[in-house]
């Protein structure tokens, strides 16, 4: 596989307001680096993330999509992340079934205390997506950047 060293992937991270977004803030407070490629969208709970949003991101030019939520059992809304886990497991399985690269999507549990984990996860995910190269299998050619 060709690896373009200069390829800078676009990565969309959906973070739940209570744990993961706070975890992202903590990694900021602790000045823990992760790549600028990662752009965070705040959602109240990981269960707010509609599969449509994920596909939309790929359509519009994202190369990787990651969803972060509270650890199972710690959801601010008691059960939201349990629904997330089922929905996203099935969605990822379907994307895999359609031949979309597995490493373009991820779900991670990051608590408000895990600033270091947040940074580590983002570093790793960016690296994994960078290795995959640009998203070609699930892009909308009309949205391709020239």
């Amino acid at each position: 596989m060709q690896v373009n060293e200069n390829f800078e992937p676009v990565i969309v991270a959906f973070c739940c307001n209570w744990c993961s977004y706070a975890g992202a803030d903590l990694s900021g407070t602790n000045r823990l680096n992760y790549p600028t490629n990662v752009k965070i969208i705040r959602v109240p709970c990981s269960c707010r993330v509609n599969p449509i949003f994920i596909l939309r991101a790929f359509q519009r030019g994202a190369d990787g999509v990651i969803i972060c939520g509270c650890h199972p059992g710690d959801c601010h809304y008691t059960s939201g992340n349990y629904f997330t886990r089922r929905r996203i497991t099935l969605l990822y399985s379907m994307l895999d079934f359609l031949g979309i690269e597995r490493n373009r999507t991820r779900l991670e549990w990051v608590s408000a205390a895990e600033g270091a984990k947040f940074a580590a996860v983002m570093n790793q995910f960016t690296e994994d997506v960078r290795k995959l190269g640009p998203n070609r299998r699930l892009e909308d050619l009309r949205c391709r950047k020239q």
Partner: protein
Amino acid sequence: MQEAMIKRAKELLADGTVNRVMGWKKGEFVYDTTPAVFETAEELEKEFVCNDFTQANLSKYLIKESRKEGKILAFLKPCDTYSFNQLLKEHRIIRENVYVIGIPGGPKLDMEKIKAKGISGILDVKNENFTLKIETLYGTETMPFYEAVSGKCADCKSKKHVVYDELIGEDGDVLASRRFDMVEKLENMTSQERYDFWRGELSKCIRCNACRNVCPACTCENCVFDNPKSGIDQKAAADSFEENMFHIIRAFHVAGRCTDCGECSRVCPQNIPLHLLNRKFIKDINSLYGEYQAGADTTSKCPLTDYDTDDCEPSIVHERGVE
């Protein structure tokens, strides 16, 4: 069979139990049958049909019909009763307004498969001891019955009626089908092979919406793909992405609700095996969250609106099969 059905329908119309009958209507050709509502004994006599080609699932029509004045009689094959039950669970059909008569199911025949044998000018098809006698403009042809069985019936999951008011003919059992074989075959391919397979199939999609319109799980008052407010409304599959998007989201919206009736693939004019997407979800749900058959009852929780605190993580997708 057809005669028994017409007879019973006329009785129920006559005694006022129902004021309409939902069944299938004869067309120009023997294989050309359409779902229809009959209001009189005369109409029934003239146009009602039930034969090897009455495949269409009638359940979906009952959403609207059950909301009309009076009770309607519906003839449901085993697979149709699953859809009917699922719609009851979702409060889409008003049960009191439907009188269900369970009738035996298939195997029904697929005209395309007969035509594929090079047989044309078909006038009539008769099943004699599992050999098809086909009357054509050019004489009589024969072929083995099973070679003409429709795809949806070949993988039949159940001959059991899960809901009915009365039965004509005998009730059957849930079958041990091999319906997941093809899904498994795809799972064992490499990612690239799967991608190529689905590109090959989905690129044929002309976005006629037949799959959606026939699907008894796609019953939204207003589909997200038709609603400009949803932000994903599309009229035509103008890009390969939209082919993917439409079918992924459709499969996702019916996940845990699809009874695997097979109508989507049956009606697809491009012969895309759309049912494989739904079966992939069914297979995943069965293996990850426990066996579940949508429509088998009206009380169990749909796997996507339910959870277990020990559910597997999505990483399981990465751990199995081949990349």
